[in-house]
């Protein structure tokens, strides 16, 4: 019974990992561009949720939506003002630009919100559901289900819609896409918006369950990279499976072997899997 409880907890955590990692994989797939500021986007999503609760008294539905919109706008702005320009530069400039952006966002958050840990009040979606002895905290349950739905939605958007085809066309061959009448700049701005927006909503969902401070982006950024590498760079379903797997392995190994060993096991399996399958679970070789 306890083991089932551990598995449920791991899957709920994994669904959120999947959601905030899917944005990172999207940008990689679209532009071969590594966004080191992705964890900071998640962190900003958490603070947007806090501001909505404090200023507007909004509930989870509202702050999730606002965080998604705010971060979508930020993602588009970051693309237009920064990425578009450095993308033409050398690889190192690309890497350092988002790394610099990450530090800028993190320390701006320190400046505005201070280093204190904050958390949302308990009243929002609090409580626990008991299904046949398995306890499911409502915040994590809602966050996990919404995250899974959004990740699937993002995948559908990419594979089943015209916009998705246009996005993928730009990723496939920029010049050919332009000849087909697709504007690559617009598509890539959209990709950044979607990526940041999904990070924002993932942050808002996590804010329901976890306390955080401006340095939280570091931890999430690292997790996102591992998920993306494991799932295969550029693959949204890959990020989904990898996110769930990592959540599950973390929870399981923490329970079975003790919390200080969980990262050894997660990263050990991660390295072993990359050794066997360098393109990741769902990546193209």
């Amino acid at each position, binding site marked *: 019974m306890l083991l089932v409880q551990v598995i449920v907890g791991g899957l709920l955590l994994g669904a959120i990992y999947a959601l905030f990692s899917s944005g990172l994989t999207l940008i990689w797939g679209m532009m071969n561009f590594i966004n080191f500021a992705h964890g900071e986007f998640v962190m900003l999503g958490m603070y947007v949720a806090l501001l909505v609760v404090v200023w507007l008294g909004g509930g989870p539905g509202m702050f999730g939506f606002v965080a998604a919109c705010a971060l979508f706008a930020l993602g588009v702005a970051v693309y237009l003002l920064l990425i578009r320009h450095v993308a033409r530069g050398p690889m190192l400039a690309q890497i350092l630009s988002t790394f610099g952006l990450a530090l800028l966002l993190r320390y701006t958050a320190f400046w505005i919100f201070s*280093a204190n840990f904050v958390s949302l009040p308990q009243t929002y979606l609090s409580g626990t559901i008991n299904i046949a002895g398995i306890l499911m905290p409502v915040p994590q349950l809602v966050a996990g289900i919404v995250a899974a739905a959004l990740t699937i939605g993002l995948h559908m958007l990419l594979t089943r819609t015209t916009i998705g085809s246009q996005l993928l066309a730009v990723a496939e061959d920029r010049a050919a896409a332009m000849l087909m009448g697709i504007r690559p700049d617009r598509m890539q701005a959209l990709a950044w918006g979607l990526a940041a927006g999904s990070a924002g909503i993932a942050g808002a969902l996590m804010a329901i369950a976890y306390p955080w401070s401006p340095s939280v982006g570091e931890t999430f950024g690292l997790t996102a990279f591992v998920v993306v590498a494991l799932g295969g760079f550029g693959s949204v379903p890959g990020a989904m499976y990898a996110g769930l797997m990592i959540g599950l392995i973390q929870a399981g190994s*923490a329970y079975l072997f003790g*919390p200080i060993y969980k990262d050894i096991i997660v990263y050990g399996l991660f390295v072993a899997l990359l050794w066997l399958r360098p393109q990741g679970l769902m990546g193209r070789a």
Partner: protein
Amino acid sequence: MGYSDGRCVLSSKNNSSVGRIDVRILSLPRALLAGALAILASMGPATAVDPVKIGILWPLTGNAAAAGQASKAAAEIAAEIVNNKHPELSNIPLAATEGLPNLGGAKLELVFVDHQGVPATAQQLATRLITQDKVHALIGAYQSSCSFTATAVAERYGIPFMVGESAALNITGRGFKWVFRGTPIASDYAATYMRFFNDMKKQGNRIESIAVVNENTDYGTSVAEQIEAAAKKNSIPVAIRIPYSASSTDVSAQVLQLKEKNADVVIFISYTSDSILYMKSMKDLDYLPPMVIGDDTGFSDPSFIPAVADIAQGAMNRSAWDIGQPGSTTYKINDMYKSKTGRDLDDTSARNMQSFLALADALNRAGSTDPERIRDALSKTDLKPEQLMMGYNGVKFDETGQNFLASTYLIQLEGNKYRLVWPDRAGSAKLVWPMKGWKH
């Protein structure tokens, strides 16, 4: 200064066509002149008020930033008490006077640095404070792991280091001559918990086993080891010990392990975000042990109460700080702190403040900024309980530099405040056992 100015002239003229020997002849008098001027300047009336510099290492950003910032405010209040006249706090040494009387009224100047909780950074910053900022004494460094590395630097350079509140045993007892520690340590805390458990058992509360949950750096490991050893000596079984990393983002597996073992008391030796996360996860997984004891630190962090007060009612914590009755010195100090930060002074910051005041007292008795004399004065420190703001039995350092008169109380969360509940004494609130958690 004068000498280096002379060197500067020498090297710049070297590049010109003027010969080397000529330059020396030219620059030597200048160097001497500049040197003499510098000496004259330092002998002037300025000497009387040359500040005494104290280098302070705390985590001002990063995971423990809130605790570091709170302690920074406390140190600033302590400096304010020493530097200006505060006759209303006259039982605190140096409060009634202005500055350090034995150093001609010299003021204390604080140089803060931020080690972010990284031991290697703490080491580098300690070196910088000593070699570049030329501080006369050091205070730090919150995380035991950071105090451990920073004190080694002070020892190497021969500059006195006052460990404000780090609890790990291994910081003192390395044969260091320049390290002093004002706070109680891991073994003191473990002994206090055992006395408390025995007391509770006598009152008929069931304590058949305890669980120990500790973050896995120097601080958590040291305290947990001491508790395990003390529990063994007092024949209280430790049902489970769970070491974990303080940067964990999910602790539900650990809470499930605790739930399975079902100990009567769970002791958390945790930093801030992790202690909040534990309280929230325990509620989510519906696990409420009869009693939770936080080993200060995370439970005393300014973020803890606003985040989880409504679900952690009755949680206990240790503290050597008590605000006390209106009109008392501690109450007035708390007022000063509150008007600066908007919050009550917490135990962690208060222990740092007490260590700071003990250092200031030694600086004054040294009557000089000579490191050897400061060290000597520190080793002769003998503060009585009535001269302290903390509930220690005094401040007196043994040969390892540890204050062997330090001790602690236990406090309990009621509403939005911790109240002193143990040991039983006048003015203390009544202990509630078992804790109510979120069921109130």
